C-alpha cells in the first residue's frame, strides 16, 4: 500500500510517491518482499536482487550511514534516486557520503536525506549535495523548510559552493564606528 507523503525537494514542499523499504528483524535481503511501485531499497537488497530490480522502470537505493559512497560507483546510472539514511540526526557520516557521491562520483540525480531528518540540519545537508529531504514525520515540514535559508553566506567550499569566500569576493574589514 502506498501513501503519498510530503517531502522537501528543490526547496519546495511537494507530494512524493516513493516508498522506502527497510529490513525488519528477521528479513533478509534475498527474500524480503519488495513492494510494487516506486521503491527505495536498501543497498543490500539492490545487491542481492539486482537482476529483478533492473526490470523495473524506476528504482531508488538508500545507503546506510556506515556505507561508503564508492559501493554504488558502477550502478549509479540505474537509479532514479539515491537516498542516504540518518539513523540519528547526530550521526554525521551521511554528510561525507553525500559529498563523495556528488563530487567524487559525479552523481547528478536526486539525492535524498531520509531517517532522522530535522530542520536544523537541512542547511548543512543541502550544502553537501542533498536536494531532497524526507523530514521526520512528526515534524512540521513547512517549518523545516525554513532551515534551508538560515545563512546567506558561507566561508568554505562544499558541493553547493565551489569557490571559497576568499576567492569569490573582495574582502575588507568594515569599521564599527
Amino acid at each position, binding site marked *: 500500500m502506498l501513501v503519498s507523503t510530503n517531502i522537501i525537494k528543490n526547496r519546495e514542499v511537494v507530494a512524493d510517491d516513493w516508498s522506502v523499504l527497510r529490513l525488519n528483524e528477521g528479513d533478509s535481503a534475498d527474500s524480503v518482499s519488495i513492494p510494487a511501485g516506486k521503491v527505495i531499497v536498501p543497498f543490500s537488497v539492490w545487491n542481492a536482487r539486482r537482476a529483478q530490480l533492473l526490470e523495473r522502470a524506476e528504482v531508488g537505493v538508500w545507503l546506510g550511514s556506515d556505507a*561508503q559512497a564508492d559501493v554504488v560507483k558502477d550502478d549509479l546510472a540505474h537509479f532514479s534516486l539515491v537516498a542516504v539514511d540518518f539513523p540519528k*540526526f*547526530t*550521526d*554525521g*557520516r551521511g*554528510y*561525507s*557520503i553525500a*559529498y563523495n557521491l556528488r*563530487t*567524487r562520483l559525479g552523481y547528478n540525480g536526486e539525492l535524498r536525506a531520509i531517517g532522522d531528518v*530535522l530542520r*536544523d*540540519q537541512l*542547511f*548543512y*545537508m543541502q*550544502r*553537501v549535495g542533498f536536494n531532497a529531504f524526507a523530514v521526520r514525520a512528526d515534524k*512540521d515540514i513547512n*517549518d523545516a523548510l525554513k532551515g534551508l535559508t*538560515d*545563512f*546567506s*553566506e*558561507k*566561508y*568554505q*567550499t*562544499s558541493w553547493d559552493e*565551489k*569557490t*571559497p*569566500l*576568499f*576567492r569569490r*569576493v573582495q*574582502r*575588507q*574589514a*568594515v569599521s*564599527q564606528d
Partner: protein
Amino acid sequence: MYRYDQYDHLIVKERVAQYRDQVRRRLADELTEEEFLPLRLQNGLYMQRHAYMLRIAVPYGMLSSPQVRMFAHIARKYDRGYGHLTTRQNIQFNWINLEQSPDILAELATVEMHAIQTSGNCIRNTTSDELAGVAADEIIDPRPYAEMIREWSTFHPEFAFLPRKFKIAISGAEQDRAATAVHDIGLHVVKNAEGEVGFRVLVGGGMGRTPIIGSVIREFLPWQHALTYLEAILRVYNQHGRRDNKYKARIKILVKALSAEEFARQVEAEWLDIKDGPATLTAEELQRIAQYFTPPPYETLPATDAGFEGQKTDNKGFANWLKRNVKAHKVSGYAAVILSVKKTGVPPGDITAAQLDFVADLADQYSFGEVRVTHEQNLVLADVKISELFTVWQAVKAQGLATPNIGLLTDIICCPGGDFCSLANAKSIPIAQAIAEKFDNLDFQHDIGDIELNISGCINACGHHHVGNIGILGVDKDGSEWYQVSIGGAQGNNTSIGKIIGPSFSAQQMPVVIERLLNVYVQQRTEEELFIDTVQRLGIAPFKEFVYASPIPTGYTHGEDACVY
C-alpha cells in the same frame, strides 16, 4: 588583531537569529531537549550543576579592549559578576539562564564575538600561542593561519556532526606554548631548507580517558595546502571514527587502531582528490589576513631604560614580578606582561567584572588595546614599554593580578570541578586553594622554580592533569571524593604523560602529598635541575616511596570545625 568584514558580521548575525529561534522552539516544546542539546552545545551553552554555563569563543586567545569590556558587562548583567578563563583560551560564564542566552549572543556580536562551536562534536575554536607575534623565539606568526582555519571551520557543513569534539592548535615558535601534541590536530609552522613556510602536522593527540601524544603524519605541508589537508583528515575521521562508543570516538583512537602510517596513507589518498582545488590558499588571502596582524606602531626604543633599572634594584617585589610575569619581546624596549589570574584565595582563572574593565583600560593605555588569554588561564598584555613596567605593575598589583607566580607552584591550572561541573567526580577548586595556601610563601616557590601543577575533577582532563609535572585527578571511590596523583607529565616541546604514583588520597591529605613530592625533589635535585628534570632522571620510585612511607593524616570533622591535621 583580526577585524570582521561585512561577511563575518552577516554570518554571526544570522547565527544569532538562528539560535534565538532554536531557543524559542525549545521553550515552545517544538524541539525536545535531546534535539536541542547539540544545537545549544554548538553555541557553547552547557547545562552545569546549578545553571547554564556559556562558553564564549576567543579565537586563538586574542581580544580587543572593547571585547574585554563586553565580558565585564555580561558578567554584571547576566551572571554573578565574574567569568572564568579556560585552558582553551576561552571565557565561561557560570550562571546564565537559557531565555537570556540569545540576547548575550546579540550583545557579543556587536563587538565581533560569538560562542560558535565552543562545544559539541564539531571543529572547536582553534587555539594558539599567547605570545604569537611578539615572542622572541617566533619563527612565523601563526595567527593568520589560525584565522584562516577559523573561517574554514566555521559552520563547515560536512563536519558539524563528527564522532566527537575536534580541537586544532597551532604554534609558530621554537617553544611550543600551545600544547599542540595533545590536540586532535597540532600544527607547527616550520620552514624547509628552501626557506618556504609550511606545517608539520601532528594527529591523534589528546587527553581525557586515554591520553595520547599526537603522531607526525607529515613533516612538511606547504602552507597553501593547509585547508585541503585538514579537510582530508576530517573526512577520513568523519567516516571511519568510531561512533559506537563515546569514549573511543576521538581521532586518537582511530589513529591508534590504524597506525599513524596507515592513517597518513588514507589522508594522502583523500587529499589527492582535492589538492590544488579552489580551497587552496592564495598569497592574496594570506596577505589580506596577515595585514590584521602587522606589528602595532612600536616606538624606537633602547633595550632598557635607566629609570627601569633603578626601580628593579630598589624594589624586590617588582624584581620578583619581572622575573616571573614579564617575558622577552622581539622588539627592543618592549616586554610581554602576564597578568596572574592565580591569586591565592581565588579559584584559578576566575576574574571579576571590575578586573575585566581594569584590564581593558590598562590595555588601552599601555598595550595598544589588546589582551590575550593563555591556556594556563592567565591574561597577557603583549606590548608594554619597559619604561612603563613599573607603573603597570603598581596598577596591576592593586587589582590582585600581579602575583609573581607565573610558571610557579601556585600558577595552578584547574578545571571548575565539582563546584560547577555535573560530570565531576570530585571538587578541584578547593584542592587548588588548599595547595596555594600551604605554599603561599613566594621565596619557597621561587626556590622550587618552574613547575606545573594541574588539577582535573574527572578523567575528562579539562585541567590538563595528564601533562602537569604534578597532575591531580579527582576520582570517585564508593561515593566519596579522592585524588589520584601523577608526576612527570609535561607540555611543550617535550610533551609527556604523567605516571600515577599509587593509591589515591583524600582532599585533606593533598597539601601534604605535594609537600612530600617537593621534599624529594629538594633533596635529590642537582643544581639547576627543575622538578620535571629530577623526575625524569630518577623515575617515580623515590617519590612514590617517600610519599607513602608514613601515613598522612586524613583530617576529621568536629561539629562545624574541620580539622585538617
